[in-house]
């Protein structure tokens, strides 16, 4: 386990060092009106939605699945809440409605994958495409702006630290607790490592798979609320666009194999931080906007390659 997380940690440190070299004030924090400000805090705040979605994705990937619909689900969550608030509703009820609807969308994904047996990548592609349409329907094609101080707190508020990152870390702690204190973690890994053996041992694989897709959708919903709350608006087209890619990358960089099985929540945390730090780095070291994506890709490939030999070595130590 230590070995598996070594390279992501080094990559994160390397990125941070690079930033300090370019911008010496990178690590400086200042307390103002009881809020912490600084580049590191920005990374945490902007990385919160990615981390949250990556947590849900980790469990999905551990069962040999993948959820491409999380970005669209995030957009739907923002659309529902903003439309509700804009029509004079209470923000708390609006957020509750969003979570309910997204849980239902998670049930839909879980149904396609576990009951109908559709390949996860295809099953969730349905909602990835259709979900943006649903969000458009809800917002009637407009960018819905709201003016609700309560709602604004979710994505932009502070309790010394940004509320968004506190939520994400709380969910991380909760998932770690639930998977460790109940048998969910064991059963998820068991289904991911060997579905056939798990079935013969009587594991309710269907329920497990259903659970992780609902959880992933809920994570996406909360992330969507953060994104939309941060700008006090719901943009059906662009909210959470490509965030599923960042989330999957975060999981992979964190050392969880796309082949399913053993997963690492700590790894996912590191992965999400690397992704966000990378995005920030692109701005601080002044990489031309037209090649930022290429730069990101190069770093991601480098991290994955650095991990690979270690994992291969680990594998070789295990006779098949």
């Amino acid at each position, binding site marked *: 386990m230590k070995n598996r997380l070594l390279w992501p940690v080094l990559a994160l440190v390397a990125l941070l060092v690079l930033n300090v070299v370019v911008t010496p004030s990178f690590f400086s924090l200042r307390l103002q009106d009881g809020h912490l400000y600084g580049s590191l805090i920005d990374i945490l705040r902007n990385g919160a939605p990615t981390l949250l979605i990556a947590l849900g994705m980790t469990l999905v990937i551990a069962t040999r699945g993948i959820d491409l619909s999380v970005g669209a689900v995030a957009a739907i969550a923002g659309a529902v809440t903003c439309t509700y608030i804009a029509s004079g509703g209470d923000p708390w009820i609006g957020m509750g409605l969003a979570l309910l609807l997204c849980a239902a969308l998670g049930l839909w994904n879980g149904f396609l994958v576990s009951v109908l047996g559709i390949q996860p990548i295809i099953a969730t592609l349905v909602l990835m495409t259709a979900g943006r349409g649903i969000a458009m329907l809800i917002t009637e094609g407009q960018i819905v702006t709201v003016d609700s101080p309560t709602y604004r707190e979710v994505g932009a508020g502070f309790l010394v630290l940004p509320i968004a990152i506190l939520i994400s870390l709380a969910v991380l702690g909760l998932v770690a607790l639930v998977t460790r*204190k*109940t*048998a*969910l973690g*064991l*059963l998820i*890994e*068991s289904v991911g*490592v*060997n579905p*056939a*053996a*798990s*079935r*013969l*041992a*009587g*594991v*309710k694989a269907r*329920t*497990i798979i259903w*659970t992780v897709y609902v959880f992933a959708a809920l994570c996406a919903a909360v992330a969507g609320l953060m994104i939309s709350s941060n700008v006090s608006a719901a943009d059906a087209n662009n909210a959470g666009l490509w965030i599923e890619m960042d989330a999957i990358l975060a999981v992979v960089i964190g050392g969880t194999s796309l082949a399913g*099985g*053993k997963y690492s929540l700590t790894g996912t945390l590191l992965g999400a931080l690397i992704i966000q730090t990378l995005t920030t780095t692109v701005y601080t070291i002044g990489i031309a906007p037209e090649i930022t994506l290429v730069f990101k890709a190069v770093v991601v490939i480098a991290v994955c390659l650095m991990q690979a030999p270690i994992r291969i070595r680990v594998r070789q*130590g*295990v*006779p*098949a």
Partner: protein
Amino acid sequence: MTEPVVDMRGISVEFPGVKALQEVDFRLFPGEVHALMGENGAGKSTLIKALTGVHPLAAGEVRYAGGSVSFGGPAEAQAAGISTVYQEVNLCSNLTVAENILLGREPRKFGRIDGKTMRARAAEMLARIGLHIDPGSVLESHPIAVQQLVAIARAVAVDARVLVLDEPTSSLDVDEVAELFRIIRVLRDEGVAVLFVTHFLEQVYEISDRITVLRNGRLVGEHATATFSRIDLVSAMLGREMGVLEEIERRTGTPGDPLLVAEGLGRKGSVAPFDLEIRSGEVVGLAGLLGSGRTEVARLLFGADKADSGRVLVDGKPVHLRGPRSAIEVGIAFSSEDRKAEGVVADLSVRDNLILAMQAARGWLRPVPRKLADELVAKYMEMLDIRPANPDAVVGTLSGGNQQKVLLARWLVTEPRLLILDEPTRGIDVGAKAQIQKLVADLAAEGMAVVFISAELEEVVRIADRVVVMRDRQKVAELDGGAVGVDDVMALIAGGGGVEKAVAS
């Protein structure tokens, strides 16, 4: 006799840590059908792959058509005239019959594929093996059997001198097998040498001219089919001479009430309907060759496969076995023969593997308390002598025997009433084997019902109170009490003329 077209001498093939073939000689003559026989792991597939260049030789020489050869792979072998047809149809089901037959060697005209010539050529090849279907029809519109025959047409399309058929009949019904055999005879009469691998004894005697038997990677013998009796074939495959019996230490126990009764239970294409009664405190052995239906019986009893006929009663009440969970609920446990694919969860620890079934039964909300898990792990590690005695060891790193013990323990902690063990002693060392046999006897003495499946007849006969014999996917006999000997079982497995011969001897 003429010169052999294939002459393999002293063939040895090694994989890391395993000698898959040791100094095997094999000859194949033009115009004969030669059956290659042996139990699972005997080296049949390895020998075929050594011939077609898939596996490099550690020692030995392959002579083909008079010269020494060393193929780089199946494609080279095929180009030289050795075609192989595998158990699964390896064709493109979305293309036409003609396209499949001539795939990779399509006739061309001005650089484009000439469809008309292609269909005509394909029709010729189909006519050669007497298969009358439209070459322009899409392959998947035909039943699997016809697809199999198309695969053979493709294989012989390149003037094959040697045709290797690796278990081509396992998915075919009786009429389809007859059609396949008709075609094999046509090819044989044209001088093609046919190497035929199957698990069905009837078919061997129907079609083959000679038989080569392998066991544990070694050549047992080569015989003319006409003078090689079924009983001799079975004993050669299993490695036992008739009449050689070990001292049997039989456990004397009184079986209790019927626990599970199967009435006309069956599944099409898997096992013919059978009746079976299992009493508590009784060990029922299932004997038969590989593919005889012994595993299929176990899977039906556990609900791992759904039966399409008959019913199962537990304690006299009908039980609907929808899947493993419903069987587990009534106290049935099943340990698969395929330890790796259907047994251990390789990346998880011994502890996690051991409590998996118990945990699955409790649901994820009620975790097995760590203290209980540690107690259970400690208890079974000692009881079954699991090594290394480290609950956190990754199960994939354990030896086969120790993995098997972990799987046994996985079910024992759930305290089942009926334990079905499919090949629990295969591929494990002698010590572990003896421990598992003793455990089974002890469990039965405590009142558990056990279904014990093994390819080793001595083992089945020694452990079981009752032996159920399977042949060609049918239950053919049930031998009661202590009078069962290995010879009796072997004779029944061989079936056909074997019974009379066994009685005569």
